[in-house]
């Protein structure tokens, strides 16, 4: 895989941009996602990472993973995480609080997508 000058991996000629884990879940809700985690919180929850692929089909995630380079021991801890995008409660958060947080974020993300499509 190519590397951009800022060390971000490159996908289709464009440097990958780190995206928040929660926003990725909100945008691709109920799809399979391949996400390279670059930052974890103290609770071992992903915070930031690169979105590599998303699809309703799990097998498409495997195809995307197969194109990613194997990581070496000297590389930073950045595993490729495959998951089905459903919101994740934070520790100590009630279901109602989690739903509220998720709905706000999903509304924001959908508004951005719609704005971009109209613009």
């Amino acid at each position: 895989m190519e590397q951009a000058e800022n060390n971000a991996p490159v996908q289709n000629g464009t440097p990958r941009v780190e995206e928040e884990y929660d926003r990725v879940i909100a945008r691709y809700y109920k799809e399979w996602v391949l996400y390279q985690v670059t930052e974890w919180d103290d609770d071992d929850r992903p915070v930031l990472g690169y979105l590599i692929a998303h699809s309703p089909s799990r097998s498409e995630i495997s195809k995307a993973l197969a194109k990613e380079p194997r990581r070496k021991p000297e590389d930073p801890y950045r595993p490729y995480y495959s998951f089905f995008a459903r919101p994740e409660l934070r520790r100590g958060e009630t279901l109602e609080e989690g739903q509220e947080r998720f709905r706000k974020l999903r509304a924001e993300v959908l508004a951005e997508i719609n704005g971009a499509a109209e613009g």
Partner: protein
Amino acid sequence: MAQPRVEVSYFLKPRFDDVTGDRRLLVARLVVGLDIAWDMLPYPTAAQSCVTRSAYRDYAARYGLLAPLPRSLLIEDLSIRRQPVPPLRVVPSLAPERLGVDGFLGFDFFSQFQVVEWHPNTGFMRLQYP
């Protein structure tokens, strides 16, 4: 000198469905080697741990295993919350994908520990080695 292994502790991650509010999926994030992380559903009443067929093939491909693949694979270099856990033999299965996870941790996983402690209200799990 290496310290003896005592326990593995972590919080299960509750994933929920926004519409139904179901929070029945509590997963452990299992990291495999340097490359892969999977959502695994603790399922201690299932005899055998399993992963999706895609995850099975992903592991084989990343570790250079050639087809035809064996009926089970011993997955090594595992960790949960950066704490090493013992190798795990898995079979491929259709069931995990239906639940939106990459695998189930079965009885064979939990039986490697002397005590498995689970706090359902917080999702805390502690696995104590013999």
